[in-house]
């Protein structure tokens, strides 16, 4: 509908760095605000629904095809490389379909091979978001339906650890298989959502202690969604997966921050139960605050010069 003005804040405010506040600054902000209301990046040619559903189909279709193809190859590093490529590409397409904007923080702590990645779980999209930045081996229950097809396809290309529902009850079996997986240093880091169910995006509950009995290096990751742009919480008793996904796709955007945290290993003698009492933390919402910070930097720099001159 409109052509957005992409110039950065400094240019839009007729900026040399460190200029004073002026009454005309309000033009820039009100213009930007209105532009954002009228249009976002997806609503350009197609109607947003068409585009988004198309992208999702392409993404999933490619994933299934790609992994099946790669699965035909014999074990080799080429196969692993291809498998990662397929996963990453398809993920990116799917995230685009959800109009996602994701910021990764502290990339130096990204989970490594042979480790365990532990993240809070707000919605099924969490998996997509993490996989965009790196490949993981999934752990979880075998599902029927669409998810089941995707799961089976992914297993062909690189090893994941899927369990039948009955097996999940046997904690020893689960622990054993996970241990085997991480012992193999070439295998991708395991991705675990310890809470089991989705929490609604306000605080990180105590991680179930089972995750810590496996040992190995644990890489905590926090995923925080910006609720202003779309509520990612999935109430599975209210919506089924498909209608949830459709809601997500047609909502304005999914904006989230992913924080990688320094890896931890279990100290000798530390109990798994203790570990479970991790962080009841609220990850900070910095989206608006970043804008405010930048603007403040601009006008304050010059102000202090002014007061010195006077």
């Amino acid at each position: 509908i409109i052509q957005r003005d992409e110039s950065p804040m400094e240019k839009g405010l007729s900026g040399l760095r460190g200029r004073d506040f002026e009454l005309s600054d309000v033009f820039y902000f009100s213009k930007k605000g209105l532009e954002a209301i009228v249009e976002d990046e997806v609503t350009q040619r197609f109607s947003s629904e068409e585009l988004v559903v198309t992208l999702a189909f392409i993404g999933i279709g490619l994933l299934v095809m790609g992994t099946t193809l790669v699965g035909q190859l014999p074990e080799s590093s080429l196969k692993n490389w291809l498998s990662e490529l397929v996963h990453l590409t398809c993920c990116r397409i799917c995230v685009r379909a959800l109009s996602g904007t994701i910021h990764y923080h502290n990339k130096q702590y990204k989970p490594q091979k042979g480790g365990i990645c532990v993240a809070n779980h707000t919605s099924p999209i969490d998996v997509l978001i993490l996989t965009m930045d790196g490949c993981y081996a999934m752990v979880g229950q075998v599902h029927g339906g669409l998810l089941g097809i995707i799961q089976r396809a992914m297993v062909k290309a690189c090893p994941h650890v899927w369990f039948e529902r009955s097996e999940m009850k046997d904690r020893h079996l689960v622990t054993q298989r996970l241990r085997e997986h991480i012992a193999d240093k070439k295998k991708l880091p395991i991705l675990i959502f310890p809470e089991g169910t989705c929490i609604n995006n306000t605080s990180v509950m105590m991680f179930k202690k089972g995750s810590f009995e496996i040992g190995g290096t644990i890489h905590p990751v926090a995923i925080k969604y910006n609720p202003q742009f779309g509520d990612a919480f999935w109430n599975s008793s209210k919506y089924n997966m498909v209608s949830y996904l459709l809601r997500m796709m047609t909502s304005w955007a999914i904006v989230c921050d992913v924080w990688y945290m320094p890896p931890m290993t279990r100290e000798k003698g530390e109990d798994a139960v203790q570990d479970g009492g991790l962080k009841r933390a609220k990850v900070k919402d910095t989206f608006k605050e970043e804008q405010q910070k930048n603007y403040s930097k601009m006008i304050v720099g010059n102000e202090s010069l002014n007061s010195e001159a006077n």
Partner: protein
Amino acid sequence: MGSRASTLLRDEELEEIKKETGCEFGQITRLYSRFTSLDKGENGTLREDQVNFRGFMRTLAHFRPIEDNEKSKDVNGPEPLNSRSNKLHFAFRLYDLDKDDKISRDELLQVLRMMVGVNISDEQLGSIADRTIQEADQDGDSAISFTEFVKVLEKVDVEQKMSIRFLH
């Protein structure tokens, strides 16, 4: 709240909006579908401040570029919403929170606070506000009237800064 049907755009409304804002039919209908997709509560208004579609279009009309007026110049009609003077009025009203036609120090402080968040101290913000008022105030009432506001901004390219490029 009324059924969904009552919030669909009627032809007479379309005509009125077109006259008032100067936008074309195609643009208005596309903006209407955008509006409805944002209107989650399905009650014809957007969020907290309860802007209905007319209000939304009126606000948006202030941001039309002035060149667009060349085509549909109606000399006898009312001043278009996107004239320089009306754009300035719009901006003035953003600052003039209590609508008394003056921007007081308090109002300026409030707006500044919204723009910088928590990153600047009250003291510093106060001195920024004082300086701004000092530079603009001509009749010595420690507030900025609309005339003074216009004077301060006379060198600013308002037309360009307050324009959104609409595609046809």
